């Protein structure tokens, strides 16, 4: 009889301070969204448009340059690569992975959960037990094992993480669908003889979408962190390709001497995750009020 049954990860939960003025509420959504937009543009378009050097193949003679050196705004890493370039390119992989994983989770998991919740009965029980097994399974193990055996790569990371994103979304989707099913208009739709597919598409989907999207926002932050963790352990995006995670790992080795090698990618990570979290929270607050 667990109270928190949505299977949501640690972050999805209670509202922050109550009512604020109307314009502040709008700001809560606009500001993080803008930050994310700028970030995405910077990561994907920045390297194409701005005079930023390549993220790999740097000159070893130029290694360990401090921040604000000429030509290297954030300095260089042990191999002479420009840190800013690496952060932007790393952002590309992190955001791509996070987007792919959450999209898969949303579509596959969301559908599965909705079907399960809607169908009820044996189907529901069976699917739920399977999902319970997946959720109880220590995810990092599987990801590590997969990475170990198949070799680290972006695609493998996406697949491995999606493996756990799908059940999480399924749980949320199922809980939302179950709550929806109680409402009278669902019974009405059934009585009218509306075909199941139509009910799902036109009634269930739009109503559970807000919760799933909010969950996805928080999921973006989570996946970026986990992908960083994998790269940190050497099992995510393989070097020399940059990822915020492997940059942090690399910087760890000279932590006391050159802390900025860890600080810059950490800042990028923090800002991105914070923006996603704030956006998710604001969206949830906005939608739950309706």
């Amino acid at each position, binding site marked *: 009889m667990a109270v928190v049954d949505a299977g949501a990860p640690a972050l999805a939960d209670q509202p922050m301070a109550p*009512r*604020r*003025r*109307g314009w502040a509420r709008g700001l809560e959504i606009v500001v993080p969204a803008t930050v994310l937009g700028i970030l995405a543009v910077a990561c994907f378009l920045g390297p194409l448009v701005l005079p930023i050097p390549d993220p790999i193949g740097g000159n070893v003679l130029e290694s360990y340059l401090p921040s604000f050196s000429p030509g290297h705004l954030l300095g260089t890493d042990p191999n002479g690569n420009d840190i800013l370039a690496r952060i932007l390119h790393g952002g590309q992989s992190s955001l791509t992975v996070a987007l792919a994983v959450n999209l898969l989770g949303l579509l596959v998991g969301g559908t599965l959960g909705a079907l399960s919740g809607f169908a009820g009965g044996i189907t529901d029980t069976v699917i739920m037990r399977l999902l319970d097994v997946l959720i109880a399974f220590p995810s990092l193990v599987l990801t590590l094992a997969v990475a170990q055996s198949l070799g680290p790569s972006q695609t493998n990371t996406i697949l491995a993480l999606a493996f756990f994103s799908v059940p999480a979304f399924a749980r949320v989707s199922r809980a939302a669908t179950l709550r929806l099913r109680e409402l009278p208009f669902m019974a009405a739709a059934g009585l009218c003889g509306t075909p199941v597919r139509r009910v799902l598409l036109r009634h269930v989907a739009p109503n559970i979408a807000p919760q799933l999207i909010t969950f996805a926002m928080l999921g973006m932050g989570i996946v970026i962190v986990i992908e960083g963790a994998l790269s940190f352990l050497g099992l995510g995006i393989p070097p020399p390709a940059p990822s915020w995670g492997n940059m942090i790992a690399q910087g760890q080795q000279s932590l006391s001497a050159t802390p900025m090698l860890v600080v810059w990618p950490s800042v990028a990570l923090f800002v991105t995750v914070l923006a996603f979290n704030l956006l998710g929270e604001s969206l949830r607050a906005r939608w739950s009020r309706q």
Partner: protein
Amino acid sequence: MSIDRAGNDVLVTDPESATRSLLEVTDLRVYFASARQRVHAVNGLSYRLQAGRMLAIVGESGSGKSVSARALLGLLPHTAQVSGSVRFDGTELVGLPEREMRRRRGADIAMVFQDPARSLNPTMRIGTQITEAVRAHSDLDRNAARDRAVELLRLVRLAAPQRRFFEYPHQLSGGMRQRVMIAIALAASPRLLVADEATTALDVTTQAQIMELLLELQQRLGMAVIMITHDLGLAASYAQDVIVMYAGRAVEYAQASTLFTRVRMPYTRALLGALPQLEREPHTLLPVIPGQPPDLSALPAGCPFRPRCDAASDDCATAPPFAEHEPGHWWACWHPAEETSQDGASR
């Protein structure tokens, strides 16, 4: 109103207290401030209540009756702004510092709320919820408090009080829970009990039992009672004095007998008229009051009932004063009914 129903002076032992009412509410105003608007829930309510009498405050939802009651105890949320005067036994309550207010809550004025299922803490034994109230205003130790609690449960006629003491709210029926609420309210021997829709959530039979209990307790303990209700029948059956509220103000005020036989306010008449009655021909339409209650964030000047009143005229653009037009009978209307109402709901 220190005259009894026969119009004779009531014999009083303390001449001073006879003239000083237990509760004097003067021009009470409450509004709720939010980012965009102000909702004026109570707009100038005034009345007097003597010790030991039962007053019914009657009105529809949104008339401000509950809000005015909570204002007495200072139980409104922070968004509420209260002005005006509420004097309890001579002490001004509006603006009283919170610590002082707390001393009076439960001890001088106590409240019983509408939904006992939600008004009792589900994870606390009912005995503890009563002893909490007892010990808040006395120095009794745990055992003495427990004895007092059991005594209170007996007072509200709850069977097997010793055993009930250890039970949880969900193990009791609705009527029993309401008795527990009353026991909690009586814990510190208050002089005024406010029953805010105390019987609305109960079925009719239980309702009658609880009202009888309240009446009995009132007479036994000499408490004054304010009964807040939307049920005119209830008010007529049990209360001695009645105030009718509309849009946050009092529109009519009299002893129950007077009010229901010599109704003046068009609103009160309409309310009485809207009660279903056995004497009417079957299949006649219930005369409902047309229109909607006013928007409390945008109250028009003048009489708030004007849009729905069939006796309205241009005079009504100015708000009629709430005055004692006849001895013991107050109303606020330019066009009170002249005739005695034939279908008053006196029972």
